[in-house]
């Protein structure tokens, strides 16, 4: 660290940047949503869409596709993207590390293990539940699996009322590895059919979106996300360090617990209906910070909005690129996310190399 101060160009006040950024993200989200409901394998003209919304006469097939397939799917994409975005931002604030991602606390790994277990071994349990409950088995199991894994990570990182973020990180790595081993084993003994289902799930897909499936899942993602928004001040303070945050009046231990719980609920809820979709939680907060700075009054809502917009866009590509078949959205997200992530990293490297 040199003692020479680096002169910089006159900066636009951050406050202004933040407001602008929020507007930009809001517009991006709106546009993405319109594209998400406007485009798809079935061609629905804007005129028809207007008719559907205005409840006037229109081809029932188009109406059904729009209201029962496209709309719930777009809503799911928005909610899942927003949830993963804000959860990722919260994780990065909690771990004071811009490379953190919700998976660190084990929630995705636990959810994946539970889901794969149901897929491969669930056949023997199926007769215990009614056919009406069948579609619930997988999402419910994966949600619970995610919570259990997070609880494990949290317990391992907490001693005598103090939660060590560093220890949680290590515990998270262990839990992720354990889950991967379990998934690997189950993959090995799975048959053709199960293998396909399991791959489909671990690559993420919004294809199961129907109102019946997503309406119960929405509050599980939306409510924790809204609660996370309220922690913007605490996360800002914690960026200075836990001691400093405490000196500024933040109840650090309570905040850490609360954030871990909220992220587990939010991500668990999202993963249970859409499978594993990576990169959103990692990349979106970065982009938001790049545009408007690190204050969480922007980063939290911004990550939610940009996450939703990104997910809607990725799903659009997933649905159109191989129409009439569709690609798992997790793959599209990784294909979009990885280059963006690499360029962010390259930039950081260049900036700090002075």
């Amino acid at each position, binding site marked *: 660290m040199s003692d020479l101060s680096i002169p910089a160009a006159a900066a636009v006040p951050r406050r202004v940047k933040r407001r602008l950024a929020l507007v930009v993200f809001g517009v991006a989200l709106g546009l993405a949503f319109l594209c998400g409901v406007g485009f798809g394998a079935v061609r629905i003209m804007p005129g028809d869409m207007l008719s559907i919304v205005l409840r006037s006469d229109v081809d029932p097939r188009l109406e059904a596709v729009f209201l029962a397939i496209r709309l719930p799917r777009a809503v799911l994409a928005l909610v899942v993207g927003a949830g993963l975005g804000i959860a990722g931002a919260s994780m990065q604030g909690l771990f004071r590390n811009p490379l953190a991602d919700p998976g660190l606390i084990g929630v995705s790994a636990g959810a994946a293990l539970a889901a794969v277990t149901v897929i491969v071994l669930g056949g023997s349990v199926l007769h215990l539940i009614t056919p009406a409950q069948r579609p619930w088995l997988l999402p419910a199991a994966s949600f619970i699996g995610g919570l259990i894994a997070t609880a494990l990570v949290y317990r391992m990182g907490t001693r005598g009322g103090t939660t060590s973020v560093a220890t949680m990180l290590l515990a998270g790595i262990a839990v992720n590895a354990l889950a991967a081993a379990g998934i690997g084993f189950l993959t090995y003994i799975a048959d053709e059919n199960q293998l396909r289902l399991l791959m489909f799930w671990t690559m993420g897909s919004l294809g199961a979106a129907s109102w019946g499936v997503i309406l119960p899942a929405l509050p599980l993602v939306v409510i924790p996300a809204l609660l996370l928004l309220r922690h913007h*001040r605490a996360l800002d303070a914690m960026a200075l360090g836990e001691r400093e945050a405490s000196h500024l009046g933040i*109840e650090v231990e309570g905040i850490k617990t609360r954030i871990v719980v909220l992220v587990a609920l939010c991500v668990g809820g999202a993963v249970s209906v859409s499978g594993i979709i990576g990169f959103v939680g990692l990349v979106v907060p970065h982009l938001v910070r790049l545009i408007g700075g690190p204050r969480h009054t922007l980063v939290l809502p911004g990550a939610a909005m940009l996450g939703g917009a990104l997910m809607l866009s990725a799903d659009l590509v997933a649905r159109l690129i191989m129409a009439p078949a569709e690609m798992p959205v997790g793959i599209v997200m990784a294909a979009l996310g990885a280059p963006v992530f690499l360029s962010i990293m390259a930039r950081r490297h260049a900036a700090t190399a002075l």
Partner: protein
Amino acid sequence: MTLAVHELTQRIGRATILQDISIEVRPGEMLGLLGPNGAGKSTLLGALAGDFKPTAGRASLDGQDLARLDALARARRRAVMRQHGAPAFDFTVREIVELGRSPWVGRSTTADDRRAVSRALALADVERFADRATGTLSGGERQRAQFARALAQLDAPPSQVAAQRYLLLDEPTSSLDLSHQHALLTSVRRLAADGLGVCVVLHDLNLAARYCDRVLVLRQGRAHAMGTPLEVLTPATLEPVYDVRFAALQAGDATMLAVIG
């Protein structure tokens, strides 16, 4: 009306960091904490900050047990400036200083906050680069930014001014160049003169001699000497603590200590 510790003992595992310390930080006064590394200075400052519940003894604010106050209540009565590295994210100086206003949420208007931030930026002499990201600053500039944050925290809104406030500083001059060291400590002295109670951990004995009203010298967790700089900062008192030889030199009206062996 003081910030104090009473018969404070702090042990971590088998190690005794502090043994039976009783001191108080008085309004209008600068108290210096001196001693070699490992003497317990930072821990003592932490106890005064209310960072932990001590193994034995207690910390008190205006007679009330410090542990009884929650983090927010403490934050409204005292500010702490410690050394630390760059924040995890690229905040601007202004954003860092704005964070100093967090304890006053709900009790301060936006206008009050803006004014407090401006005053703090000016006093810490960081206005010039207020809107630059901390990653682009030197160590000394970052340190002054943290000083500004602590100042912003102490700048109580009009309705809250009455309560006595304290400023705790842990090696606030470690990365500063000479002129800024004196500028910072002079600002602090002025704040003390206005009524602030200040406790500062210093490495530099001469700075302590110049700016502190009283000093406490710690040796291996125990109070070795306590009193005015004139009384305490003598070769006889200090040589056993620092294991070096000092010579006292007169320079104008100031006494300087020089290491001679």
